[in-house]
């Protein structure tokens, strides 16, 4: 298990009304390179699965959730990592999910 950081890295929010959404997004990296063949799972406060997206070619991901406690879990070949965070309306959270190579 690797520890995930919490720095900016998600896709552009241009054109999205962030005031009505509780958004978490970010970028997944392995050895500093984008994870283009990975999966990010959104888990609720109890750790139960809520949603999943494949990472983009640039390693990016985004979820529109609701306010509260959440975590994301990155799956890629041979490695995983997790990050926990709180979401609030109008305050997008940007994460870097980084796995050492």
């Amino acid at each position, binding site marked *: 298990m690797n520890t995930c950081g919490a720095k900016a890295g998600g896709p552009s929010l241009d054109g999205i009304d962030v005031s009505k959404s509780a958004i978490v997004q970010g970028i997944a990296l392995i050895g500093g390179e984008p994870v283009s063949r990975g999966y990010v799972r959104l888990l609720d406060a109890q750790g139960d699965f809520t*949603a999943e997206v494949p990472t983009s070619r640039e390693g990016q991901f985004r979820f*529109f959730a609701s306010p509260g406690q959440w975590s994301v879990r990155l799956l890629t070949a041979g490695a995983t990592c997790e990050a926990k965070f709180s979401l609030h309306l109008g305050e997008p959270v940007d994460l870097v999910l980084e796995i050492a190579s």
Partner: protein
Amino acid sequence: MSRETSLVNSDWVSLNLSTSGVVLVEVDEDTDAYEKGHIAGAVKLHWRDDLQDKVRRDIVAKSDFEKLLSDRGIANDDTVILYGGNNNWFAAYAYWYFKLYGHKDVRLLDGGRKIWELESRELTTDVSTRPASKYVATEQDHSLRAFRDEVLAAIGKLNLVDVRSPQEFSGELAAPAHLPQEQGQVRGHIPSAKNIPWAKSANEDGTFKSDADLAELYKGAGVNVDTDTIAYCRIGERSSHTWFVLHELLEMKNVKNYDGSWTEYGSLVGVPVELGA
């Protein structure tokens, strides 16, 4: 059906990439996924452009399905192996679709695209083409498909299984959390429905849980195996995943997929809706 006749694993696919009569078909929610890389030899079906009527909200007509499969070079006696992203959501939808139109031998790659990628198996960007076939479909098998009036009549009587996330079921979210939440439908769920999220039937790598675990899951959630069942979600693809589990893996009788799902039900005037867990 059973696990042996409705599923294959990634080793089986690897061994049968060049087997005559085996056709791999990728169907994804992310419609660019195939172009990012796909299993060698796989052809693509686009869940919206190929599998949705161009004008009405409906699946395509029999004649259009025949033309689609003929153009893709899929024959009636081929073994079709479907796989895709999102834990096979749209591949399961296509599986249900193939069964609806009477294809004899169709199976899912257990774990779909995700297991293939997590096992670091090879993907190619070479687009696959196959010689055209002359596919002949049957009429739709409506024993597999529920329509809205059946759903209304089923409230409080049959098993209604809402496979969306708990947050969508309660009304907290209007759509899956990876999608924008501005939706035209009201929020909530059909009264008397049991919320058994599709994800509870799958392992983290996208493979299905064991038959014993699946049977316990639905029994424990109050699904009466002796009663007819209708599964629904938002647009009918996640509920295809659960339909596959109940009808194909657990071999329950009389299980229907309501492909109108919450997009239809949540837009109907005057129907009962419940909020909360």
